């Protein structure tokens, strides 16, 4: 079964959730799922945009009490 890893980027203004995800991708294996937690609304757009560009998979985005959960899968 694929691993699911939480990347807790709440309150991260710098480097910010997308940078945290880019770094976490380097440490992940193909097939791993990463769930990024972000308090920055922009993450709901810019993470899926980057994931599409580099051809990983965006699984879902949800919001709960001001925290965005963006679930992605390392595809290559």
């Amino acid at each position, binding site marked *: 079964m694929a691993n699911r890893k939480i*990347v*807790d*980027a*709440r*309150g*991260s*203004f*710098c*480097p*910010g*959730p*997308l*940078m*945290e995800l*880019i*770094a976490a991708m*380097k*440490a992940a294996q193909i097939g791993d799922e990463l769930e990024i937690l972000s308090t920055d609304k*922009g993450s709901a757009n*810019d993470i899926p*945009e*980057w994931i599409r*560009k*580099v051809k990983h998979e965006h699984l879902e985005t949800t919001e709960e009490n001001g925290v965005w959960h963006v679930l992605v899968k390392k595809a290559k």
Partner: protein
Amino acid sequence: MKILIVGGGMGGTILANNLARRLSTELRSGKARITMLSASDKHMYQPGLLYLAVGRMTPDELYRDQRSLLEPGIDFHVDPAEEFRLDKNEVRTKGGKVYGYDVMVVATGSRAMPEEIPGLAENSEMFYTEESAVKMFRSLQKFQGGKVVIAMGVPHKCPMAPLEIAFMLHDYFRNRGILDKTKIHYTYPIGRVHSLENVAKWAAPEFDRLGISYETLFNMKEVDGAKKIVRSEEGTETDYDLLITIPAHRGMEVIEKNGMGNRGWIPTHRHKLNMEGRENVFVIGDTTNIPISKAGSTAHFEAEALGENIAAMVKMGMPVREYDGKVFCFIETGNDRATYASFDYLNPPDPKVPTRAIHWFKLAYNKLYWASARGLL
């Protein structure tokens, strides 16, 4: 209480001195002991590398003797940790000694890894070590014009360095009178020119004004030295005559080898600063996995919070405060102006218009750093 600090860089040194002051009575009575292990007898002021790379500092200005920065009560050894025996509360060093502890703090920093991108080490200039910064300055001096590309990997320490090197190169080429023959092209990994939104909003028009072109969502994948092209994960490429890079970082190898953190980043509680799952092991500086800037100021503020807490643990058996995510970074915007960004977990930064006064303050800080490391500032 035996306190062991592993790492004598910014975080470790500020913490050790902070503790030695708070615990001066306990150190004298033998109730507390502070031991520091480091990999070098020298302490480098790393921000100075940026100036070294453009010929505005010389290597000797970057160093002090580590022992001279430490309070007298601190037991200092140049003997790097090799094996962390967390279950036994002890560390074995390269020299074969074993140090036991009641409380350990890990502050071993991070390192740039150019070798992870094919072609990068052989075909680019960097400034994150003394040797590479001197080599970069030599290449700059030989450069007579062409396209200079700035590219970086994630994560990297000092989030302001990408912008600063762009502005400093602009002024360097202008001073040499070759700006009209030089094109600076700045790339950045995410969808704006800096991770801090407010800084990006200010920097992009500044780049436009100075004629620095930029390209976002650019994560280096490989460098083709023969064709002089750098390609991105995003499927784009850009050609260069001179490639200046900040490679992606990892924590130290010793952290990875001991299974303490993937790629050398130790899982750390963002407020308490303890290593996840360990009550008596704390982590500060670059080697934490906390999602904030890997910067000296982060290490500094973490060291102050932790110093207060460890001293309180010695004196009354429990910590007294939490780290709030505070970071403060100067931003050099060329040869004669600077601004700054200050933020924490809850409050974003709001950088002001760059001024000469802040630039002078940064230059003063380049000297004042030694007082700061000693715990005086």
